[in-house]
């Protein structure tokens, strides 16, 4: 397929999925819709995360910071602002913080970047706690004015679609290519003419904006937010995990993983309450070990490969146990001796 055909295919898939998601509240139960909502939240978060962090390999753990900032914005703003404005404001502030944060940390790579973004998230959380406690005299906020559930659902849906659409679109542009180059070898990309600083800051801000918007939209479901819940680092961890499980470098990986993960986690939670978190952990490990390319890389070939590998493994173990390996080595040695190597 040519790149154009790919584009059309991707857009069609996205369109189909969107249509389906739009129709969902019409026929599905409360529970299914609220599950779909969680799912969409992670689609938006991990797709937008992969958009920047996946391609450039800047592993950011700051998603929860942006999420929390968005949440706080809407918690504070909703009383005076309309819903779309509050969401947009959440996105803008998150992006603004990302630009500042980026200016400080985007020159560090790898783990340093990951650890720093994590540290900054914690810093923001504690700073907000402290500020609230000493200035407003209370920690956390109660959201009195909240929109309808469907409003929240469609907003998050819109954000998820936006995130995926951006991923589809951006990978074809100079911007997307530049991010890919940064991921492969940043300095090399620079010598080929990429203004890496600009690209990184923009990409980081974009991710942050979407996370912020999602945070702004989701927080209303919780009535009461405090720094501990909305800056919960696990939101960031989960986002990263989902993106990586799906395949951070791929377009559809994060989406597939978000769906699989949410459905699986929920099913296991309800079906095997005792051990579901353990099963989840186990599945995670297995998927990393045996699906290193992510869920998006699963092909019929993958299964055949597993089958082959396990057969080979079985044969080897059997030979080892029955002493066949020893005998074969012995035979080979004898053959060589027979040929009078010496």
């Amino acid at each position: 397929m040519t790149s154009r055909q790919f584009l059309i295919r991707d857009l069609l898939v996205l369109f189909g999925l969107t249509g389906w998601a739009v129709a969902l509240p019409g026929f599905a139960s409360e529970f299914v819709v609220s599950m779909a909502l969680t799912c969409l939240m992670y689609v938006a978060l991990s797709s937008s995360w992969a958009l920047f962090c996946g391609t450039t390999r800047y592993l950011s753990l700051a998603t929860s910071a942006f999420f929390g900032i968005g949440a706080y914005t809407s918690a504070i703003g909703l009383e005076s602002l309309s819903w779309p404005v509050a969401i947009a404001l959440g996105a803008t502030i998150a992006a603004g913080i990302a630009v500042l944060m980026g200016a400080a940390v985007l020159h560090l790579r790898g783990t340093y970047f990951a650890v720093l973004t994590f540290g900054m998230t914690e810093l923001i959380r504690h700073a907000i706690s402290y500020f609230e406690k000493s200035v407003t005299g209370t920690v956390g906020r109660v959201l009195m004015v909240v929109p309808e559930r469907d409003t929240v659902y469609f907003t998050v849906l819109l954000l998820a679609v936006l995130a995926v659409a951006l991923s589809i679109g951006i990978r074809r542009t100079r911007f997307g290519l530049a991010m890919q180059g940064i991921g492969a070898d940043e300095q090399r990309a620079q010598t080929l003419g990429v203004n890496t600083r600009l690209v990184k800051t923009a990409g980081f801000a974009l991710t942050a904006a979407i996370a912020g918007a999602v945070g702004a939209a989701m927080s209303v479901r919780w009535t009461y937010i405090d720094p501990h819940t909305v800056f919960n680092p696990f939101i960031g961890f989960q986002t990263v995990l989902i993106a990586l499980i799906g395949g951070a470098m791929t377009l559809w990986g994060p989406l597939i993983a978000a769906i699989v993960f949410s459905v699986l986690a929920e099913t296991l939670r309800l079906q095997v309450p005792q051990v579901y978190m353990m099963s989840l952990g186990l599945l995670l490990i297995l998927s990393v070990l045996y699906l290193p390319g992510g869920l998006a890389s699963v092909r019929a070939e993958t299964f055949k490969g597993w089958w082959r590998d396990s057969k080979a493994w079985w044969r080897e173990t059997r030979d080892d146990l029955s002493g066949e390996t020893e005998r074969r080595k012995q035979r080979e040695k004898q053959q060589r001796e027979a040929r009078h190597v010496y």
Partner: protein
Amino acid sequence: MSFSAWIELIASGLITGGIYALVALGLNLQYGLMRILNIAHGEFLMVGAFVTWMVAATFGLSPLWMIPVSFALLFGIGVAVHWLCFRRLTATSPNLDVFEARGLMVAFGLMFLVQNAISWIWGGDLRGYDFLTQPFAIPLPGGQAQFAVNKLLVFGLALLFAGALIVLLRTTLLGKGVRALMQSPTGAQLVGIDTKRLHPLMFGIGLGLSGVAGCLLSMAYTISPSMGEPYTVTALIVITLGGFGSMGGALAGGLLLGVIEAIGMHFTNPSLKALLSYIVFIGVLLLRPEGLFARKTRKA
């Protein structure tokens, strides 16, 4: 503030810092040297703590006996985990970055697995027991300060273990060998390192140390299956301050953090303390990413 009060404050900071350092040692081996960001570090520590608690609570055995036992137990688990997971990861990852990312994911999986296994076996309740909590007065210049005996014990053993590790890594090539392994697996084989043994060994020691830390912590603090995460974070902060892979750095970093926190807590309040430690952490990372105590060339 009087001189003796200062000394007392700093001593209490040092003791907390020693505990931080102890918590960081295992992770420092795994992450600093082996590039396995074992986010389940705190969970394994928790296993050590729970095993100790269980033995202390059911058999009334002194928790001190559990120090070698939890080391051995966790060492065994570590070797097994390495054999089951990281062996394959090392073999299949094209480069260090990828290995690190995948290792992180595996560690997440382990975290879920271990934490919930423990809470499945023992329930999610908070636990604790009373051991050596009586105060002990240590004479200090200009007065004296009281500390619980178990804290002093933890502190002493933290110094001991850190010291032992420093000596081990300075006098043998083990630490360098592991770092070499991560930087160039082929190179490591070429100089004759048995990569299939060294790696599990070091990983096992790392986990064993978390076990020891858990065992000791259970004497001083309450424990629960979800206690792990904060310890992982503390450990990460400490090893970043001290420089990845440097045991001396981890010790110094832990002590420094403890003192900073104690002083910060005294002069402001404990809430600001958290803010303070993160500011120090971020400041260090930004200004001296190689760690506060790293010289140009890294030593064990």
